[in-house]
Structures are given as structure tokens and as C-alpha cells.
């Protein structure tokens, strides 16, 4: 089978693009359903074109000796990378909208030159699922962006519609659920001009209740099962309500955070609903999370729930790469190593049906990270990152500042060009 693939792809080898072709030789390669295996990987024209025990070095001018190194798919993080530069400065934040809610898609605001992107790329991240935060009932649309060097990035989306359910300062959570059900009812029954009177309520002046055409179209996509509803919810009973609602509304569901998910792990598993979470969230930080525990992740894992991880302390975007720290801790908390690593690579892609990324397989995008050791360990360093087969510049401001302040030179650092 592998040989056949190799032969089919053989014409590529006859016309190699010298700049594009890379042979990663002798690394421990993280393969789906297998784990780390010593393999050679050939990358050309942005794709992984061969994975073999041995590929002859003569095939490419660019051989990267990866002996003893670890090669994984590039990390896929959940973050506001490229959409938030400094948390306390609203003028540098583009994940919010006062105008739109369900239909708000921040991806057009993406800034590939964010310092947070440079840092995260140097730490092994190759793409991000952007997390919006509009005001009102819906936070907005999730979308996917690669974080390669340069002006242009491949994007996919919308991937899902983000909302939250649970404690609120004003309305009962019961009313919030009624609202969602009513809204779905009106959208299901059409929101064209002839039925405008039916949904007048939803065009109120209060931002929470104002739904533009764009917003209603986003909800329609959820109803049509073109994308899932992603619900940030923590309390076990609330999770059950959301599962019930998704079933009766016949929509696809993804759970976010789910601090008390372990109490209803079987129900989540039976509904085949994935959970995006931080295994480190063990503090009973609110009355919705009184049963938060380190055991959450292993209980969900053991129940067979598909998981993806983020690092909650990343201040939105800046340290999103530390999802590996969450994953490493998940291993210590009882999750199998391969599943923990999948939770920051292939599972995000699988959950949101992001095409052609997240695993090392023939024909997939060559989004790869080479580590000097176990990628989930705290002291491991990233050596090389490929995005779409292109070797990335891993320079970042933190390394540059370090150098500026540790290098002895004649002139004070402020008089140096760099």
C-alpha cells in the first residue's frame, strides 16, 4: 500500500522544487493511531508526500537530520492569536463586536505580524482556531487560520458558532434556554421580509436582542448542520440541558470548558459530543464549577469523549502554545500519551472538520514541528517548524530582547541597530 502511494507520487520526485523539497531524516515521527515511530518524511510542494522507514538522502538537497528528535504535526491552538495584541488596550483587540453577535467573524481582522504569533510559531504552533467574543447571546464565529510567516495565510471557516450557557447576573438560565429555543424556532420558520413580524423581538435596539441578517444566517447554518454550536458551559445539569436541546433541535454540538463534565461523562460520550477543555481547571471558581477537579480530564477520556485542549492561563492568545503543558499534565492525570498529544494536534482538526491538517499522513499539509525532546515536556525546545512545507523563520521578540540584554557590547543597547 505504501509502495503504491510512493509510486503514484513518484513523478513529483522527478521534478523536485529544490527550495520546497525537504527530507526529514531519522526522527521519531508521531503517526495517527500508532504514536512515535522512527521514520523519514519527504515534504514537497507544501505537502507530505512520503513517510518511509528509509528514504534516500539523494532525493533532496535539503536534508534535515532529525536523529533523536521528535516530529509532530504542528500544534493547532484555540486562541485569539492575531486578533489581540495587548489585553488591556481595546484598540489592539479585534475579537469583540458591539454590532454583530452570531454572525460576527473576526477572521478578517487577523494580523499576521502580531508578536504573539511570532512567539507561538517559534514554540511549535502552526495554526489557530480563532475565538471571538462579541457581546450579546452569541460570541460569534470560530474560524481557522494558519500562522505562517508573511502577509497571507490560509483560512477556513466558519467552523462553529460560539455561545455560553449557565450563570448570569440578570436572567435565569432557564430563560436563556427558552430564548435560544425561540430564536431557533423563528429562524427555522424563515426570517425573510414576509415573516419579519414574527421575529421583530429579535431585532430590538438592545444589543443582546438585535439580530442582523448576517447573525440570523449564522444561526441558520447551525440549524442546517453546516457547523456545530459550540457551548461554553460548566455545570453538570446545564451540560445535560444543552445536550437535550441539541438533540431536540437536531444540531451538532461541541462543549467548551465543561468543568463538571466528569459528572455526566457517559451522557456526553453517548451523544458523541466532543469537549474542548483545559485539564488544569480544577478550581471551584464559580457556583457553576463547584465540582471542578483534576479528575475531569481522565473521566471524560475514560468515557470515550473526544477531547481537545487549550491552556486557560494564556491570556487569550499570548501563550496559547502552552496547550502542550496542559496536555503533559493530562498524561500525569491519567490520559494516554498519544491521546493527549492528539488533543493539541489532530483532535482540533477532527472536531471542526478542518481539512488536511493535524496529522502526519501522505497528502496532508506539511505543517510539522521538530522538537529536541518529548514535545509535552516543559524543558523541550522547538528546533524547526514547517507550515505548508515552508520552513518558518522562528525569530521572535523574546529571543531578540534576551540577546539585547545579555550581549556585552561597547555601546549601550539603545544605540545598537538591533
Amino acid at each position, binding site marked *: 500500500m505504501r509502495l503504491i502511494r510512493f509510486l503514484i507520487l513518484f513523478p513529483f520526485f522527478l521534478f523536485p522544487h529544490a527550495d520546497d523539497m525537504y527530507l526529514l531524516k531519522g526522527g521519531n515521527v508521531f503517526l495517527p493511531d500508532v504514536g512515535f515511530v522512527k521514520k523519514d518524511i519527504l515534504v514537497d510542494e507544501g505537502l507530505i508526500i512520503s513517510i518511509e522507514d528509509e528514504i534516500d538522502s539523494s532525493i533532496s538537497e535539503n536534508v534535515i537530520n532529525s536523529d533523536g528528535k521528535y516530529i509532530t504535526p504542528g500544534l493547532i491552538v484555540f486562541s485569539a492569536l492575531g486578533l489581540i495584541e495587548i489585553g488591556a488596550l481595546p484598540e489592539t483587540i479585534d475579537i469583540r463586536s458591539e454590532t454583530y453577535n452570531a454572525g460576527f467573524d473576526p477572521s478578517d481582522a487577523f494580523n499576521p505580524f502580531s508578536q504573539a504569533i511570532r512567539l507561538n510559531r517559534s514554540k511549535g504552533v502552526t495554526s489557530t482556531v480563532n475565538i471571538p467574543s462579541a457581546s450579546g447571546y452569541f460570541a460569534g464565529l470560530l474560524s481557522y487560520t494558519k500562522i505562517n510567516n508573511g502577509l497571507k495565510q490560509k483560512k477556513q471557516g466558519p467552523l462553529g458558532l460560539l455561545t455560553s450557557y449557565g450563570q448570569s447576573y440578570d436572567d435565569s438560565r432557564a430563560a436563556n434556554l427558552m430564548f435560544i429555543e425561540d430564536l431557533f424556532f423563528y429562524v427555522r420558520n424563515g426570517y425573510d421580509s414576509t415573516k419579519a413580524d414574527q421575529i421583530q423581538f429579535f431585532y430590538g435596539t438592545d444589543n443582546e436582542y438585535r439580530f442582523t441578517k448576517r447573525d440570523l444566517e449564522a444561526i441558520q447554518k447551525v440549524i442546517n448542520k453546516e457547523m456545530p454550536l459550540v457551548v461554553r458551559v460548566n455545570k453538570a445539569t446545564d451540560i445535560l440541558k444543552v445536550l437535550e436541546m441539541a438533540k431536540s433541535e437536531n444540531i451538532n454540538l461541541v462543549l467548551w470548558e465543561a468543568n463538571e463534565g466528569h459528572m455526566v461523562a457517559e451522557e456526553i460520550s453517548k451523544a458523541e459530543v466532543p469537549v474542548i477543555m483545559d485539564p*488544569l481547571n480544577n478550581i471551584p471558581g464559580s457556583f457553576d464549577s463547584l465540582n471542578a477537579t483534576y479528575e475531569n480530564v481522565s473521566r471524560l477520556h475514560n468515557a470515550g469523549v473526544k477531547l481537545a485542549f487549550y491552556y486557560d*492561563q494564556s491570556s487569550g492568545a499570548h501563550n496559547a502554545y502552552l496547550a502542550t503543558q496542559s496536555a503533559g499534565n493530562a498524561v500525569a492525570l491519567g490520559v494516554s500519551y498519544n491521546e493527549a498529544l492528539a488533543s493539541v494536534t489532530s483532535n482540533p482538526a477532527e472536531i471542526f472538520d478542518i481539512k488536511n491538517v493535524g496529522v502526519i499522513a501522505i497528502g496532508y499539509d506539511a505543517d510539522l514541528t521538530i522538537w529536541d525532546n518529548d514535545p509535552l515536556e516543559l524543558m523541550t525546545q522547538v528546533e524547526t517548524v514547517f507550515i505548508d512545507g515552508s520552513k518558518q523563520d522562528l525569530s521572535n521578540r523574546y529571543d531578540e530582547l*534576551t540577546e539585547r*540584554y545579555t550581549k556585552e557590547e561597547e555601546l549601550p543597547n539603545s544605540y545598537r541597530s538591533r
Partner: protein
Amino acid sequence: MIKKLIVLLTLAVLYGCGSDAPSIFKSEIEGSAKNFEDDIHGTYASTYTPLKSENVVIRNATIFDGNGNKFLDYDVHFSDGKIKNLGLDLEVEGAREIDATGKYVTPGIVDNHSHMGVYPAPGVRTSSDGNEATNPVTAEVWAEHSVWSQDPQYKLALAGGVTTFHVLPGSANLFGGRGVTLKNVSANTVPDMKFPDAPHSLKMACGENPKRVYRSRGPSTRMGNVAGYRKAWIGAENHKKRLERDPEHRDIKNETLVGVLDGKILVHNHCYRADEMATMINISQEFGYKVSTFHHGVEAYKIADLLADEGICAALWADWWGFKHEAYDMTIANIAIVDQARGGTGCAIVHSDSASGIQRLNQEAAKALAAGRRAGFEISEARAMTWLTKNPAKSLGILDKTGTLDLGKDADLVIWDGNPFSVYTKAEQVYIDGALTFDKASNFMPHTDFDIGIKEWEEK
């Protein structure tokens, strides 16, 4: 309506008295002068009683002693609440033996920046008690009077090997008030948690936070902040002079500030930017006090030599950044650069400022260590352990009691199931004053009242 009335009355008082200083902002109470520092907090003194200490010898462990040393296959003996001996194949009679082959032993971790208790879990408005954000100078408030002894977060930190933590007021004010050092034990009153004879701290804050909180009434700029500190210190000097002729005079705010001028209360200063830290040092020189520690110091690496020269510690995160403009110039090598300044005489500390981060300070140190090595410094794991133990104990004025495994010190120590710099390692047992307070295998740990009846699920 009532609010309006209060405003009118306030205005009447303000303009009515016509003096140069609005007297309603002065907190003067008649009474006999107190020097809480000399009888270490007077009627508020520690009433901590340790649990009954065991007589234990831990065998064949890899030990980081907190002084920067690593010992292989070493034994530790403790009894009567104190470290008795450290060495190879110790001969001990009648002690409980623990085989720690393949395991690591370290001093208990000391976190010198926590808001547990003053921002307890669950985080609700009604127990959000960390910032008395009503005046830029609230040197008179004491964090220990906000601490909730039933905060369920303490035991989570304990499971991460934290045996001592320092609770500070928040950073809304120029002077936030006094901080308190607590043993990480479960108790029904705060004095029962207080670390015996530990000095108070004074929390000060630079930069964005105070000027944001008080932008409408001032200070609204960094120069306004600095004028605010200096004004308060001048007031403290005046108070000190007045005490010479009027020793019975009381001023609750100035009692704290004079405690600093007398060197009995330690200054813990929230400050991110290098230039602002340098200014704060200038202020300390003007008034003759010493800054114990700068906290957060995202830019500490820019003045690492200055900090080493002044003998000032920097309590830092491994990698937090970007949430504020003053936290933008991050380097993960920050801690290592501070540590290595002036031939390794710097005092670097890994702090948490987070009820989540405090549970994994060993992991934070690991990341900082890796970044230091990447920046070209040769730093051992044993040295990095001082960032979590010896240095924070020094910054809190309790190094004579905890922070290292020196003989005679409190038997505050952790047995780890592997190298504490690995993400896969967990604290297996934690001892405080020689008493077992956390045991992973048997799920033994203290529970606060908040835990009682709350859990709707079975702990395994």
C-alpha cells in the same frame, strides 16, 4: 437619594473645614501607640499550633536542599517539627522509614505572591476582598483581615507542594496595605494560620493599575503615582517626628509606613517596567527604606545588575505577558537573567499571583530554567529550586525558619514522585512542621468547610 445626601454632607465637610488637607481622608484615632512589629502583631499575633510532628527518616532520595545543592541517594531525618539530619545512610533509631528510591525531596515551596483567601473560590463579588480601592493610599488595611480561612484553594496549592504562602492586597492602590505570611494549614481562624514571627509586608504598586483605578480623582499618570508615594512617605516622616514628642499619638495608616521606615515591615512592590523599578529605588533612597522585592517585574532583566547591586529580589512569572502594555517586553529568560546577574548574586523568585499557577510552581520554574539555558546560562536544577524555596523565604524574612533543608529549620518538605522539573511529576507527600498534611496515595488532605456537602461526586 441617600447617596446624594452623603455626597452633599461630604462636600460640606470638605469645604467647611477649609484646611489645606481634607481631614476626612485622615484616619486618626486617639489611643495608645502600638508597635505591632516588636511584639509581632500584638493582639493579632500568630496562634498557629502545628499538627503533631512525626519522627521520620526518608531514605535514598534525590535531594534539592534549597541552597542550590543536589544530593544523590541521601537520607533526611526530621522529628519534633525540625530537620534533624541530612546525609548518606543515616543511623536513626525509632523513626518511621520511607523508601524514596527514585523520588525527589525538596523544601516546601514558598509562594511570596498569592491572593488566596482574599480572592477565594468561588469568585463571587461578596467575597472579593483583595483591593480596598477607595483611596490610593490604604497603608492601614491588613490583608489578614480579609482572608477567608475556609477558601478551598489552599489544599490545591498544598497538593502542588506549597507549604508557605504570602497573601498580599491587590494592586489597585499606590499603597495597598499589609500582607501576611501563612502556613498552608487548615484552620478556623486566620491567626491559627499565621506563620509565627513572620514580618508583615507593605504592598505597593507602580504603573498602570493605580492610575487606571484613580484616573478621575488622581493619580492619573505615572508622575502622579510617584508624587503620591512621596507625599505619603513625607507624612510618615512627620508622624515619626511627632511620635518623639507625643509617643501616645496613633495614626493607623502611618503606623504601617513608619514600620517600613524602621525596617520592620518589608516592602513588596508590584512593578513591571525597568525604568519604574529604578524610580522606586530612588524613592526608597530618598526616604531611607529598602525594597525587599519587586513583584511581576516583566522587565526585571533590563536592570538585573541594579537589582543585584541593591540586594533586591524579583518575584516573577516564567512566561506571563501581553495582558497589559507594561507587560509587553517579555522574555522567558527573565528569571534566569535576574538570577545570574553580577556573577550569580541575583535573587530570582518564581511567584504565582494565581490560585492555578500556585499549584504548579515547579513547572513554572522548569520553563524558566529551560529558557535560561537556551539564553546561554549554565544553571542547574538545584539552583533553579532556590527560586521556589530559599529566595522567596528570604524575601519574606523567614529564611531562618523555612526555605531550605538546613538542620534545625521547620520540617517543611515535599516528596515528589519524580523530578519536580518534569510535567509528569506530582507531589506525593507534603510535610509541614514535621506533620503529614498531604498524601497523594491515600488522598489525605485538609478539607475546608466549603468542601463539606458540596461535592456531588465520588472522589476516587
